[in-house]
């Protein structure tokens, strides 16, 4: 059974038309299922976990990066992550702005997303973990004043710029070989002095007294924080045009 989780911002009138189109397309493809609207639900995690217990095989995030992260947080819950959750597939129907996660999986618009759900091409993907927060794409922070502790060494930037801890490549122009199956985080540092640093690590500790870590572009986390990776931890329905092998 498919469960479609609609994010609360989709209640706005401007999304009515596209939602209607998606629902008609899903019905045509025989993919209709239960709709769970997050607007008005106080405990989102419990609501989604309840659907999995009731037998949902595929949970589809209808919304943006934030919607996907809310669902990931519910599917991958360390306390109760059992067989039934490992088998649950995650699908995405991107609507509106901030849909870099869907784009990384080759899901570029709502219509394509419906066809991709039908094709059911499944990939096991590593999941980044910053403190207690999961991320699919990346965590980022201002470079100046940030220290990364990786195994037996530390890394500090002496210029302003950005540090990205990448699991799944968001920007295809970054020109790095990021692989969301390798159990490694890619660390990319670009400064205003136009230099580029590239490393990879299984885990690291990140600290900055003044700046917060931003996870998947939506959530701010205080530092110091440990960042790690859970190998092949989530099953995602992806498109042919995904940005990884």
């Amino acid at each position, binding site marked *: 059974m498919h469960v479609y989780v609609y994010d609360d911002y989709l209640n706005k009138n401007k999304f009515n038309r596209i939602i209607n189109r998606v629902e008609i397309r899903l019905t045509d493809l025989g993919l209709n299922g239960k709709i769970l609207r997050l607007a008005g639900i106080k405990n989102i995690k419990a609501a989604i976990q309840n659907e999995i217990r009731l037998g949902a095989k595929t949970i589809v995030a209808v919304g943006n990066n934030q919607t996907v992260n809310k669902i990931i947080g519910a599917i991958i819950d360390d306390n109760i992550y059992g067989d039934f959750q490992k088998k649950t597939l995650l699908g995405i129907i991107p609507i509106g702005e901030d849909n870099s996660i869907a784009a990384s999986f080759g899901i570029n618009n709502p219509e394509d997303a419906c066809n991709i759900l039908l094709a059911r091409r499944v990939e096991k993907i590593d999941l980044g973990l910053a403190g207690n927060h999961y991320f699919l794409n990346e965590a980022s922070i201002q*470079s100046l004043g940030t220290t990364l502790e990786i*195994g*037996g*060494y*530390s*890394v*500090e*930037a*002496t*210029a302003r*710029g950005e540090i990205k801890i990448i699991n799944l490549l968001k920007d295809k122009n970054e020109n790095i070989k990021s692989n969301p199956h390798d159990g490694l985080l890619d660390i990319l*540092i670009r*400064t205003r*002095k136009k*230099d*580029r*640093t*590239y*490393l*990879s690590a299984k885990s690291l500790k990140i600290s900055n007294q003044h700046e917060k870590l931003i996870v998947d572009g939506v959530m701010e986390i205080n530092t110091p924080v440990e960042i790690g990776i859970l190998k092949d931890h989530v099953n995602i329905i992806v498109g042919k045009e995904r940005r990884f092998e």
Partner: protein
Amino acid sequence: MFSKDNKLERFKDAETIIGASIKVKGNFQGQGNIIIEGALEGSLKTASDVFIGNQSKIVANIESKGAVINGEVRGNIKTKGYLIIGGTAQIFGDIQYGEISVDKGASINGQLIMLSEEHKRNEKVKEDTESSSEK
């Protein structure tokens, strides 16, 4: 092995790049090629090659298969293979190498010691033993 002419070509697929605005402290180890344009304090070790850029300042012992040194290194260097010392290099420490080339303008304050064939063979046997025991 890499020649002087293609010394940068070889590093296109570097596993690690440390940019000019970056400071690394501690024991830095890798398996692949490493490019350092910034600063490093501690030690640097890789099973492959190391490229030290002309703006970089290294206070560390370096151990690698091969190396290209263009910046400042305060520490000992040991390369089992080819070592290229560029014209902008300033080295304060002893150097052990398999093969070497030194450009005009380079400054070396330390001993140059060529690794004997026997030493290279012993190192190779040690490496093979380590890699088979890891398997």
